[in-house]
């Protein structure tokens, strides 16, 4: 396959940045999208040019490190995958592919396609945990049975990989799907009940402070989420928040 890439190049956070065009040829449909970028970079290095920086690590769709806004969609045109799992067979010979970083005020660009998502970490630090000591001297794991449906739903929420596609896809740059998934995991488990009120208040407060936008329930986040985190999580965090506010 022969393709034309238009890639966002930005030297650092203060640079203005611009799209630069790169032709690329002999791309196999079996390559992953990132392997295609590897080929581009190898060529750039051999020509004495600076390679395109992008985040990636596990390359099997679980670490959440890879990002990329491809032809106007977070993680590209396929559904239920991260960019590293996107394969070139999703494109046609002769296509032009526009590649940009995840864009949001709370995700400043570091360089080229690499952004800073530490705002997600700070939201979790504000309350995304259960305050038990790691002594191992807790109760036996089977002391509290958990309804399988609740356990499975908590797991579904917990499959969020924290990549930020929801934020990048949202016209308001809202992080409600991410926060909803985190709050839901704990809200659905008996272990999470004790601190439920403080948790949701603290996490939402931190989310607002980080500069994420408000949720208007357009649902773009659910469509683009590589792990299929559903809008129910947003409904649940809203309920949890309401409960917490009413409780005071």
């Amino acid at each position, binding site marked *: 396959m022969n393709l034309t890439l238009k890639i966002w190049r930005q030297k*650092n956070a203060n640079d203005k940045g611009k799209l630069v065009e790169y032709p690329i040829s002999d791309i196999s449909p*079996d390559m*992953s999208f990132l*392997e295609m970028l*590897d*080929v581009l970079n*190898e060529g750039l*290095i051999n020509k004495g*040019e600076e*390679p395109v*920086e992008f*985040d990636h*690590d*596990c*390359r*099997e*769709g*679980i*670490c*959440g*490190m890879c990002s990329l806004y491809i032809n106007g969609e977070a993680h590209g045109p396929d559904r*239920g*995958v991260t960019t590293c*799992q996107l*394969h070139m067979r999703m494109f046609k010979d002769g296509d032009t592919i526009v590649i940009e970083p995840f864009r949001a005020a709370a995700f400043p660009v*570091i*360089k080229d396609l*690499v952004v*800073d998502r*530490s705002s997600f*970490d700070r939201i979790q*630090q504000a*309350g995304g*945990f*259960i*305050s*038990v*000591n*790691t002594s*191992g*001297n*807790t*109760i*036996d*794991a*089977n002391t509290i*049975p*958990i*309804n*399988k449906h609740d*356990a*499975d739903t*908590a*797991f579904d929420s*917990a*499959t969020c*990989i*924290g990549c930020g596609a929801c934020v990048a896809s949202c016209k308001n740059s809202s992080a409600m799907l991410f926060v909803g998934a985190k709050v839901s995991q704990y809200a659905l488990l008996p*272990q*999470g009940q004790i601190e439920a009120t403080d948790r949701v208040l603290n996490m939402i407060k931190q989310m607002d402070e980080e500069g994420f936008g408000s949720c208007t329930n357009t649902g773009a986040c659910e469509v683009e989420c590589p792990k299929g985190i559903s809008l129910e999580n947003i409904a649940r965090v809203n309920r949890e928040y309401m409960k917490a506010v009413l409780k005071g």
Partner: protein
Amino acid sequence: MALDSKIPAGPLEDKWTNHKNSINLVNPANKRQIDVIVVGTGLAGGSAAATLAELGYNVKAFCFQDSARRAHSIAAQGGINAAKNYQGDGDSTYRLFYDTVKGGDYRSREANVYRLAEVSANIIDQCVAQGVPFAREYGGLLDNRSFGGVLVSRTFYAAGQTGQQLLLGAYSALNRQIGRGKVKMYSRHEMLDVVIVDGKARGIIARNLVTGEIERHSAHAVVLGTGGYGNVFFLSTNAMGSNVTAAWKAHKRGAYFANPCYTQIHPTCIPVSGDHQSKLTLMSESLRNDGRIWVPKHKKDVEAIRAGSLKPTQLEEADRDYYLERRYPAFGNLVPRDVASRAAKERCDAGFGVNATGEAVYLDFSAAFVRYGKEQAHIKGLNEDDAAVVRQLGQEVVKNKYGNLFQMYEKIVDQNPYETPMMIYPAVHYTMGGIWVDYNLQTTVPGLYAIGEANFSDHGANRLGASALMQGLADGYFVLPYTIGDYLADDIRTGAIPTNSPAFDEAEKSVKDNIAHLINNNGTHSVDHFHKRLGKIMWDKCGMARNAKDLESAIVEIAELRKEFWKDVRVPGTNEEFNEELAKALRVADFLELGELFAKDALLREESAGGHFREEYQTEDGEAQRRTEFQYVSAWEYKGEPKDAVLHKEELTYENIEVKERSYK
């Protein structure tokens, strides 16, 4: 220096309890005066950092990823072992200990393994208390499954992403401490050297991967939870950034490196598709609970399949060779990983590989669809003889258990594994070797500790499935936080460690000199060019089967490649910016040294044990042949060049388990 493993005296089952009762503690007020650096935030590093902070120490945690949650433990799929015996199938601490020592081909330390089995049950309790959503049965209790090399069901799991759920548990504990100010987190930082002051580890040199700044960080002790070195093979199931640099720098500063040749080649990975391949993807061992592995019995069918004129689903049962069930009737498809990998290689080498490259075998779920489907049809009162209904019901059960793995497979290979068997082939996955540590997890450098995959301690020559997660969390939550106190008790009056000492000056200078050399080198080839060549040498000559001649030539070739790398590598850009090529170059430079030591260690070990298979030492049936004279740990001391490393032996003694032929027949 003579090796002292510091194994406590007394009966095996009392060693850990007695040891905990007799070692020194640091009082809570004094803990506030003590700093600890933890490098790596995977299951081992993340859990250790959280626990040390919770105990009251001041912790600085480092990871090269953009968030602590992305350490490669996240990608572990199948599960975590624990001797809970919830299934009532005869499991016990002793059985988990026994299986692990046998699985490791009698090359691990008894006392460490027993302790691991002993604390395993606490891990599950801890994780459930933290809100880890393990799989449950309809009654609300925890579910289990089986892994290779054992005869019980002791593996706890969260679908096919147990690693992510456990790591998020550790990450949440870490976040709690970051929020309280007890852990200072440095993400996008890479450790490039360890600093030794008066013979003790007192800090690290780290590079800020965003700004390029070279930073000095001091502490009273340094803990490495930096994972394994599988990426020395270029292609592996490790993450792209996984590297040996922290461990290797520790080795160069005096930490002995143990059993570097013990590598786990995992039997069920997606086969290589072409030269563009950047990494390999694992298909969890848990799939062998329900998948049957086979190749065609006859060459003519192999050829027809490769030519595309025959589909695997069309081949009659009688024309299939379920070679694991044939060779190992007692364990069948659930033999340990090393055995399953060698058996796949044997069939493919004999010409029975089922894809174009001849390097793939089938992993087939059709029998499981029928088995589960009939069960469901029976429960739901549907017709058990209706094949289509049964198959659909069965597929739903399998989807529930392994859905995300099937989806991954389909996205990568572009074939639907519900309709046609998966194709799989062995790939580098885990390294049992690592930094030598004593019973306290301390390296040969006082104050320098290694935990998780970064150390060598618990898995011998082969790790059993679902034991890496167990070891990472055992080390981080329950072992290191105790044993490090014994060392730090002497430091309560030391005060903060200054970073302006000559030792810090020297370490920083050597890091900066290396970087300057790479940036100004103006060579002709990229870092990946050298990494791929190293990987090819390693795979061809130090891979699933090794022999003296190949290993000797590997040592020479790697040394030559290393010279060429330093002369001819091209690193674009500058140090003072985000520069992934520079980060990669620094990592590959260390792989080029480790690779040579790896080959030297494999050459010395004139026996076959676990993942280390020397063609010269095999039984008539082609099984690994251990030799009693090699019942020791090889611990290598750095002496300037990898080939000049000096061997120290830690003899292994087995008092609680009979060393016998490791049979899975």
